[in-house]
């Protein structure tokens, strides 16, 4: 079942065409990875999917309905977005930041219900940040902040989750924890899309990958179909080592491809 679908969208930032004629589907039960080198339009694409940036051509549909026709409230309940970076302007307590994820479910003057409190507690447990309860968020480390932001995004309990570099700044243990959690959330019936730079994690945990190159989708498919040496050379200018373990295929970026001097 398709939860969110972009059909041939093009997105401009100012006068620059950043995303060119991209089509993408987020299906129920799938964790998809959007990968590509710096400046290829991954974040711009994700923002368009979250209706944060307008697209010039093509269309985006949420469960079959044009995204532009969905109300702010309805969209915020069905789609949760975790931004790149850890913008937190005021020194709130961790649980108060996670509680912001319940705002889409509250009417103007409504207070948090027991159901909301349970959702907050559950999200903190899933992101394994229970022990940070009572701490001031601005005084946490970069990795801890990232986990708080993830818990905030999970607390929305939406059926679509878009996360921009959710594992940046995390140690390997927490990177694996977050990727396992995102995959489990997808397999529990949600559609999850993440922007990733770590190809090993992308290969290991994503059901499907979209490899962007200069704003266009170079290739999409299973990690094994996408992460070929030819595609990695074209998109990143790198070589990689491959292996096949019991639990699947893995890839390790290895070296840079030497550019041929023009004569």
């Amino acid at each position: 079942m398709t939860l969110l679908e972009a059909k041939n969208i093009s997105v401009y930032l100012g006068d620059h065409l950043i995303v060119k004629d991209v089509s993408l589907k987020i299906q129920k039960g799938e964790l998809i990875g959007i990968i590509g080198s710096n400046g290829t339009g991954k974040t711009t694409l994700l923002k368009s999917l979250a209706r944060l940036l307008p697209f010039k051509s093509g269309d985006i549909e949420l469960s079959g309905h044009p995204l532009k026709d969905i109300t702010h409230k309805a969209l915020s309940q069905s789609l949760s977005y975790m931004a790149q970076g850890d913008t937190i302007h005021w020194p709130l307590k961790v649980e108060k930041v996670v509680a912001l994820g319940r705002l889409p479910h509250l009417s103007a003057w409504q207070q948090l219900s027991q159901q909301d409190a349970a959702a907050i507690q559950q999200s903190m447990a899933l992101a394994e940040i229970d022990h940070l309860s009572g701490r001031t968020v601005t005084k946490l480390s970069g990795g801890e902040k990232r986990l708080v932001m993830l818990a905030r995004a999970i607390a929305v309990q939406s059926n679509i989750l878009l996360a921009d570099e959710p594992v940046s700044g995390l140690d390997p243990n927490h990177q694996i924890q977050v990727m396992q959690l995102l995959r489990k959330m997808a397999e529990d019936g949600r559609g999850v899309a993440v922007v990733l730079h770590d190809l090993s994690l992308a290969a290991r945990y994503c059901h499907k990958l979209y490899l962007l190159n200069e704003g266009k989708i170079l290739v999409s498919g299973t990690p094994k179909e996408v992460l070929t040496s030819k595609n990695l050379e074209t998109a990143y200018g790198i070589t990689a080592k491959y292996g096949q373990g019991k639990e699947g295929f893995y890839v390790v970026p290895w070296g840079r491809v030497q550019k041929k001097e023009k004569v």
Partner: protein
Amino acid sequence: MTQLLKQTPQKKERALIPVLLFVLGITCLCSLAIGSAKFPLFETLDQLFKRNFSQAVLILWEIRFPRTLLGILVGATLGLAGAAMQGLLRNPLASPGVLGVSGGASFGAVLVMYTGLAKAFPLALPLGGMMGALLAIILIYIFAGMNSSVQTLILAGVAVNSFSVAATSLALNLSADPHAAIEIIFWQMGSLANRSFDHVMMALPIMLTGWVLIFWDARALRALTLGEETASTLGFHMKMVKLRLVLGTMLSVGAAVSVTGSIGFIGLVVPHILRPFVGNDPSKLLGVSAIAGAILLLWADLAVRLLSTGVELKIGVLTSMIGAPFFLMLIYKMKKDMV
């Protein structure tokens, strides 16, 4: 014990509004009781309820009541608008004047004084101020555009404010009547003295409209803690949120400056003092800043009454004299926190 420690800030938060309201109540009684004319407050209040209009009753009803009421309204507006602007801009150094409407209101009132209209009928002064504030709002939106970012609005506000200051200086420069020039200078210093119920009734509806617009978006201010983009994915139409908050601030502050002149620092200082008591939550800060703004302005007005001997000490001078060192202390503390 851990539970108790966790609950303490919540209890502090819950107790804050009743405590502030109690202090406001006591301050109001002081504001009604203290002044150059001495009379027993409760007896005079009793006479007022019995409609026994003695001289003391007339002073209480015609002078002290409007002055106190205006102190509450203007102080609340400044506190509320300060908290709203700091929340919207996510900047603890923002103040209600940041949008530049105060300058417009000030110039409107000064023009009325310059042309002599103020002497023709007393309400010309606040009316002129409101017209000036309205003109400033229109100019800011014409230059910045309806869909502009808050930063663009502030820049347009700075430009309109600078022009208003220049035009005010021109009026002073060209003023043939030295008394009018002095009157203009004194008015700009801000005061609650000699205001009537007409001033209150004139400013009240506009201020209330501004308050409603600001309180409407209390939740959005909390969401803005995570930045504009994330806030809009939490169900808030950010363009409308910004429009309501900016317009609400412009209307309420424009009306306040029109009736009292410029009163600085209350909108900057009050949210700062209260932020730790509400767990730094920008939405909870609105209501308490409004009450505390009213208290602080009434205290300043009481100080003005008690300290004035012969020459009236202007309230705007006093708030700035206390507010400016506080502002410096704030910058020093921020610098220390950053190290």
